[in-house]
């Protein structure tokens, strides 16, 4: 790992494990500081300094954890799809390991979105759960996350595991898209439309909008931070396995 690295001439060169470790090691502290600051300011602003909604009362404050976690839950799967495709097409190990590293983050974010949605739904809708298109597709997305992690754990050969999980990821992408657009496709169910939209008329009120935007930025930062930490762990674990195997053969 101590060899001097030349300046990269292509984005693909960052798929080189040594180059990835060098870049991620440099980025980690900055991402950590940015994430901590953004998340702290966003959550404190949202929780302590925003008013109650005239219909939802103080439950509107749940938006600051529910919306960002739901966004990460969906987009994490899309990130896994892209890295899985990179693995299938270009065979870069770091991309397969990044997909593996992302799955527990996505699963946790899906659980947070489901639980905070249920906690909000009980007083607002009068029920913890409804077989609404968005809620149901989100639950299936969570099951896909579990299946994806189980498949990685079940297959011993890492390259075979990467291939099988990549195929599963492509299949599961249908539910990631459905989770996002269920309301548009079916136009029914209890769940309301998007809280954030490019159309200003559809957005939440400005007093909720800016702290929400900060919380989303904080969650995105947290996601990137965890991806870097966990992918570095996977790269090291892969090298460790290779060294142990080499010693056994010697």
């Amino acid at each position, binding site marked *: 790992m101590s060899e001097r690295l030349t300046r990269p001439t292509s984005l693909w060169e960052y798929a080189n494990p040594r180059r990835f470790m060098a870049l991620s090691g440099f980025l980690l502290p900055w991402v950590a500081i940015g994430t901590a600051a953004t998340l702290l300011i966003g959550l404190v602003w949202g*929780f*302590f300094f925003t008013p*109650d909604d005239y219909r939802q*009362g*103080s*439950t509107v*404050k*749940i938006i600051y*954890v*529910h919306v960002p*976690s739901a966004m990460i839950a969906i987009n994490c799967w899309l990130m896994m799809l892209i890295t899985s495709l990179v693995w299938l097409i270009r065979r870069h190990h770091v991309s397969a390991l990044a997909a593996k590293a992302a799955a*527990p*983050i996505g699963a*946790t974010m899906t*659980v*947070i979105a489901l*639980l*905070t949605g249920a*906690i*909000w739904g*009980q*007083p607002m809708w009068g029920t913890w759960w409804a077989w609404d298109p968005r809620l149901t597709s989100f639950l299936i997305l969570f099951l896909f996350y579990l299946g994806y992690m189980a498949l990685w754990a079940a297959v011993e050969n890492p390259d075979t595991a990467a291939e099988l999980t990549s195929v599963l990821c492509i299949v599961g992408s249908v539910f990631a898209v459905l989770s996002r657009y269920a309301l548009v496709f079916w136009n029914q169910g209890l769940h309301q439309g998007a809280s954030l939209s490019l159309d200003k008329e559809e957005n939440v009120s400005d007093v909720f909008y800016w702290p929400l935007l900060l919380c989303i930025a904080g969650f995105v930062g*947290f996601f990137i931070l*965890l991806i870097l*930490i*966990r992918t*570095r*762990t996977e790269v*090291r*674990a892969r*090298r*460790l396995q290779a*060294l*142990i195997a080499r*010693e056994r053969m010697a």
Partner: protein
Amino acid sequence: MMPDLGKYAADVLAAYAVSLGLIAVLLIVSLRQSRKTRTALRQVEESRQAKASAQQGSATGNG
């Protein structure tokens, strides 16, 4: 300092507790795994280096 959450206080606090709790668990588990793997890799690399230098030393001694 604590805002008045009214009749929904339990719901709001439960949502934040669940979210922050799960986020903390995820972060702690990730950091622990990272530290564990880094330590294990360093140990294996050090033992390989020690073996390699011992072999080199005995080869030089024999020569």
